[in-house]
Every structure is written in C-alpha cells, then in structure tokens.
C-alpha cells in the first residue's frame, strides 16, 4: 500500500516540477511548485518524518513561496514581458548535456549493489522523526549538550545575515 502512495506522490512531484519549469507565467510556475512541495511533504510523511513534513508545508509552501508571490505582485509583470522567454535552439546544448548526465546517474543508481542492500527497517526508534528527536539533537538532554548545538547557533547567525543583507539590498538605491 505504501508503495502505491509513493508512486502516486512521486509522479505528482515530478509532474508538477516539470510544469513549474515549463510555464511562461511566473504565477503559474510558483503555484505549481507549491503543489509539488505538498507532494514532497507526503513523501516525507511516508518516510515517517512527520515534523519535517509539517515544516515543509509551513515554511516552504507557506512562507518562501509566498515571498515569491509577493515579488511577482510587486513587479506586476505583463504578458509582453514574460513571454519574451522563448526556447531557443542553442538551449538544446545544455538540455542534451543534462539528459546524458541524468541518464548516467540513474543507470548508476539502478545498478548500484550497495544501495539495493538497504531495506527499510521495521523497528525504528520510538521517536524517529518526531519533534522530540529534533529537540534532543539540538538541545541535548538534562545531563548532556546536544550534538548539533553549535549548528543551532550558526542558524541564528545565518538568519541575522539574511535580514541585514535583504534590508541593505532592497532599501538602498543601487
């Protein structure tokens, strides 16, 4: 049963992603990516990563993509503007290179013996992928420091630099 749900979500994920890079209108493209993130959240949930699935919807589909929508709204792009993005014949060169590389990767993955040997373990830790597991990794327990405490502080510095960079770049007249 879970296999069929994986096939359903995976097909939807690939289809919506392809639609996203084919659409001329940026609004259609962004909305298609939002739906692909919902499919990806479903795949995360199938891998029993509940918290990550929720964060995927909350942050990616709910905040990051809304920022894209804001930008498109801010620019108010006309059809004459975005329909200048046409497929040229010289684009076939990167496309062919991508297809060759992707075929190589996929054949390598499908023939790899080491990947085939890993099967999903039925006996997961009881809090695998839950909120408390994330919390113990970040903050440690009552008598130890978490393994990723430093990473947690670095994330705050990353967010601070993002705030400062965005304000400086968008406020000033360049």
């Amino acid at each position, binding site marked *: 049963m879970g296999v069929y749900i994986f096939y359903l979500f995976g097909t939807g*994920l690939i289809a919506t*992603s392809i639609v996203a*890079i084919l659409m001329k209108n940026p609004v259609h493209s962004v909305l298609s990516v939002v739906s*692909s993130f919902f499919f990806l959240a479903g795949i995360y949930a199938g891998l029993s990563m509940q918290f990550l699935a929720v964060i995927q919807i909350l942050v990616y589909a709910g905040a990051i993509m809304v920022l894209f929508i804001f930008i498109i709204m801010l620019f108010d792009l006309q059809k004459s503007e975005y329909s200048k993005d046409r497929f040229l014949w010289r684009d076939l060169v990167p496309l062919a290179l991508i297809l060759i590389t992707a075929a190589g990767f*996929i054949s390598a993955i499908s023939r790899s013996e080491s990947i085939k040997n890993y099967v999903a373990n039925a006996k997961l830790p009881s809090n695998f992928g839950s909120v408390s*597991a994330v919390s113990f990794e970040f903050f440690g327990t009552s008598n130890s420091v978490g393994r990723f405490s430093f990473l947690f502080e670095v*994330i705050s510095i990353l967010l601070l630099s*993002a705030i400062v960079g965005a304000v400086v770049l968008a406020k000033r007249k360049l």
Partner: protein
Amino acid sequence: MAPLSLYIMLSTILFFIGLTGVLVRRNIIIMMVSIEIMLNASNLALVAFNRFRFYDSNDGMIFSFLIIAIAAAEVAVGLAIVIAIYRKKKTVMIQDLNVMKH
C-alpha cells in the same frame, strides 16, 4: 515501502529538472524557483538515506532543517537582489541584463 534506489532516483530526477530550469529559462524568478526545486531534491536524498541507512539517528533530518534555513536566507537575499535589478533596469529577463557585455 519503496526501495531506497527509487527514492534516490526520484531525488536525482528532481535535481535535474531544477538544473534544466536554471539553465534554460531566462526569467530570474523562475530560475530561483528552480533553485528551490534543487534544494528540495537534496533534502529528499538526505532524508531517504537517514530513513534507510542511518535510522538510529536523525542526522539527515537535522541537515534538512539546515537546508530549509539556508533556502529561506537565500530567497530573502536573492529576491532583494532581484528587486535591486528591477529598480535599475525595469526587467527580470536575463537577456536584457547585458551591461557587462558591451
């Protein structure tokens, strides 16, 4: 449950879809959306390896959180750059941004 190789193949296909979007499209906004697709492909690979191979830890999920934070920062700064370009040039098409060429 589907085998690990299918998850990794899905992640690979998603990554190359995003790469195609970056290389072929000329709209900056859609190029940044494609970068998001590529980041999500890497997230999927991390999470799949965590579930199938290193299931007694949560390292892949933690790295996915880091990548989500990086994506948020990248989008904030990148779209600010797009706004600065749009103010100057009134366009988001990269074929019109050819000041360095002439």
